[in-house]
C-alpha cells in the first residue's frame, strides 16, 4: 500500500520527542547543557582556556539564558586544532571519523562515539517522519557516501526508520534515473541542484519524473530558494522538503521541514539554537534575522559549544500548526560564507537565483563570474539558454537578456552583465553546486 504521507500513517515512536511540552523540553535542555559544558571544560583544552579567561566556571550555567556567557566556537578553531584537538572522548570510544572536503583550507575532522551515531540516526528518523516518509518507502540516497556526512547520515537514519534504502551515492545520473524508475523509488535524498540536473537529464532520456512513483525529495547540503522549490515541485510532481545539518554539529538531521513547509524544526533536545547579530555577537530576539549558533547538548566525541554556523536565519516566534513543540528557524537561503561583496554591496547567490527564476522560463543553471577591470569589480551572470526561452529572433533573446538584467539590478541595486550561454556549458555538480567564480584576484 502506498504511503499517503499523512502524519498518522507513519507515526514513529522516535518522533514523540518532537512534541515534548515546552517546560519539559527546557528542563531537559538545561540538564544537558550543564552536563555538556562540564564535559567540554574537563576534556577540551580550548573550552577550558576560553572559559577561564572569562572567569567562567561550568557551575555558573544555572539557566538556559546563561548560555550567552559562554565563548563561541568558530570554524577556524576546528582547523587550528586539526585533527583531534577538539575531542572530548578517547580514541577507543570513537567509532567513526568524517572530514570536510577542505576546499577552503585544511579539512575539519568530526568524530562520533557509538552513542553519537545513535543520536544521529534518531534525528534522521525524526526528519524522515516529519517529511511524511515511513517504513513503506523506498529511499534512493544520492548523497555522497564517504567522508562527507550526508551519505551515511541519511543511510543510517533511513535504515533505522525501517524504510528500504538504495545506497546509490552521487553521480552517474543516467543510472540514478533508471534505478528511480525501475525500483519504484518513492523518496530521493540529494542536493537540490543535483535533483534539478536529474529532472533535466530524465527529460533528455525521454522520461518524465512526474510519471514515476517518486513523491518526496529530502534536499539539503546547500542553500536553496523558495523559487527553486517551486520549480522542482512543478517539474517533478514531488514534494521538496528542506533538511538542514552541518558536519561540525552532527551532519544532516539538525533540522527539518515538516509537511507545513513553513520553516525548519530544530531537534533542540540535542541542538540548542540561538540567533546572534553576526557583527556584535549579541543575541537577537525571536523573529529577528541573524547568524544561527548551535550548541550540541548530547554530543560525546566532539561537544560543540555555541558553534557559529554562518547561516543567516531567524527563529520563528509562532508555534507550528503541525503541533511540534520544537522550535522552527526560517529556511536558510544564504550563508555569510557564500556572500560576496561587490562595489561595497553584499550579494548572496540566492538573490540572483530568485531573480533568474522570476524571469519567466529561466531554469537555475547559472554561474556568477566576478572580475576586476581597470580597478572596478564587474559581475557577469552566465545563464544557459533553454528550448523553452529560445526563439529564432535576435530581438526575443535580447529581450530575455534585458529582463534578466533588469530583474537582477532591481534586486541587487547594482549593474550586472548577463551572458546567454549554450546548454551544458556550465559545469553540473553532483554535490554542492558551485555558483560563484571569483576571478578578481587573478586579474587585479
Amino acid at each position: 500500500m502506498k504511503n499517503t504521507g499523512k502524519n498518522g500513517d507513519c507515526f514513529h515512536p522516535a518522533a514523540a520527542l518532537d512534541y515534548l511540552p515546552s517546560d519539559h523540553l527546557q528542563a531537559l535542555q538545561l540538564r544537558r547543557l550543564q552536563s555538556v559544558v562540564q564535559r567540554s571544560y574537563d576534556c577540551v583544552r580550548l573550552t577550558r582556556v576560553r572559559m577561564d579567561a572569562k572567569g567562567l566556571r561550568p557551575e555558573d550555567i544555572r539557566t538556559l539564558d546563561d548560555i550567552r556567557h559562554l565563548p563561541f566556537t568558530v570554524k577556524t578553531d576546528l582547523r587550528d586544532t586539526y585533527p583531534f584537538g577538539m575531542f572530548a572522548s578517547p580514541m577507543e570510544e570513537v567509532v567513526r571519523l568524517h572530514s570536510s572536503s577542505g576546499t577552503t583550507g585544511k579539512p575539519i575532522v568530526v568524530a562520533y562515539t557509538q552513542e553519537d551515531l545513535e543520536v544521529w540516526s534518531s534525528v534522521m528518523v525524526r526528519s524522515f517522519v516529519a517529511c511524511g516518509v515511513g517504513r513503506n518507502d523506498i529511499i534512493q540516497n544520492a548523497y555522497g557516501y564517504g567522508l562527507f556526512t550526508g551519505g551515511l547520515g541519511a543511510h543510517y537514519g533511513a535504515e533505522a526508520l525501517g524504510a528500504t534504502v538504495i545506497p546509490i551515492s552521487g553521480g552517474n545520473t543516467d543510472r540514478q534515473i533508471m534505478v528511480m524508475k525501475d525500483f519504484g523509488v518513492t523518496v530521493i535524498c540529494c542536493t537540490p541542484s543535483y535533483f534539478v540536473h536529474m529532472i533535466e537529464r530524465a527529460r533528455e532520456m525521454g522520461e518524465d519524473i512526474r510519471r514515476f512513483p517518486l513523491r518526496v525529495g529530502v534536499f539539503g547540503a546547500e542553500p536553496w530558494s523558495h523559487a527553486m522549490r517551486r520549480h522542482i515541485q512543478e517539474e517533478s510532481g514531488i514534494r521538496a522538503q528542506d533538511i538542514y545539518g552541518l558536519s561540525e554539529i552532527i551532519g544532516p538531521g539538525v533540522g527539518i521541514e515538516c509537511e507545513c513547509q513553513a520553516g525548519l524544526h530544530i531537534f533542540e533536545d540535542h541542538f540548542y539554537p540561538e540567533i546572534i547579530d553576526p557583527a556584535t555577537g549579541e543575541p537577537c530576539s525571536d523573529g529577528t534575522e541573524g547568524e544561527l549558533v548551535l550548541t550540541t547538548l548530547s554530543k560525546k566525541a566532539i561537544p560543540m559549544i555555541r558553534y557559529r554556523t554562518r547561516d543567516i536565519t531567524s527563529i520563528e516566534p509562532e508555534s507550528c500548526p503541525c503541533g511540534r513543540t520544537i522550535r522552527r528557524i526560517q529556511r536558510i537561503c544564504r550563508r555569510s560564507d557564500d556572500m560576496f561583496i561587490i562595489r561595497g554591496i553584499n550579494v548572496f547567490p540566492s538573490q540572483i537565483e530568485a531573480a533568474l527564476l522570476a524571469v519567466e522560463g529561466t531554469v537555475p543553471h547559472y554561474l556568477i563570474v566576478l572580475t576586476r577591470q581597470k580597478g572596478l569589480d564587474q559581475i557577469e551572470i552566465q545563464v544557459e539558454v533553454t528550448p523553452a526561452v529560445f526563439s529564432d529572433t535576435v530581438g526575443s533573446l535580447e529581450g530575455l537578456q534585458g529582463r534578466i538584467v533588469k530583474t537582477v539590478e532591481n534586486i541587487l541595486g547594482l549593474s550586472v552583465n548577463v551572458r546567454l550561454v549554450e546548454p551544458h556549458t556550465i559545469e553540473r555538480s553532483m554535490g554542492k553546486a558551485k555558483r560563484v567564480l571569483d576571478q578578481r584576484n587573478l586579474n587585479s
Partner: protein
Amino acid sequence: MKLHQLSVFLENKRGQLSVPLNLLAVAGIDIRTLSLADTQQFGILRLIVSDWQKAKEILEKEHCVVNVTQVVAIEVPDRPGGLADVVKVIDHAAVDIEYMYAFTFQSGRAALIFRFNEPDAAIKQLQAEGVNVVGSEEFQQRFPD
C-alpha cells in the same frame, strides 16, 4: 505552404559554428540554405535542411538548443526590382517581416525566405497577387543539391 526552419543558438566564440555543421554533415543532412544572425555575444544559425525532423533530433541529442519556425519561401525572377515587387505586396498586406534571406538558384531564378509575424495572411495576399509561394515539397524537389 510553409517551410520548417531550424534555428540554433550559438555563443559568439571561435569554433562554435562547426559544432552543428559537423553534426549535420556526419548525419548526411543537406543544408538547402541558411543565414546567420549575430550580436556581440551570441548568434542564431537559421537553416533549411533536407530532413528537418532528423536534423532537430540529432542537434538536440548533442545539447544544441533548437527552435522550429515556419517560414515562407517565394520564388522570383532574378532581375532588378524582383524583390522590391514582392515587398510592395507584403506592405499592402499589412504584415511585418521579422527577417528574410535570399539565394539564387538555376539561372535567373531567386528564392526568398521570409519570417512573417502573420505568415498565413501574407501567403494569402501574395498568392492573390500572383506571387509564386513555394511549398515544402516543391521546395525540396526544385532546389536541388
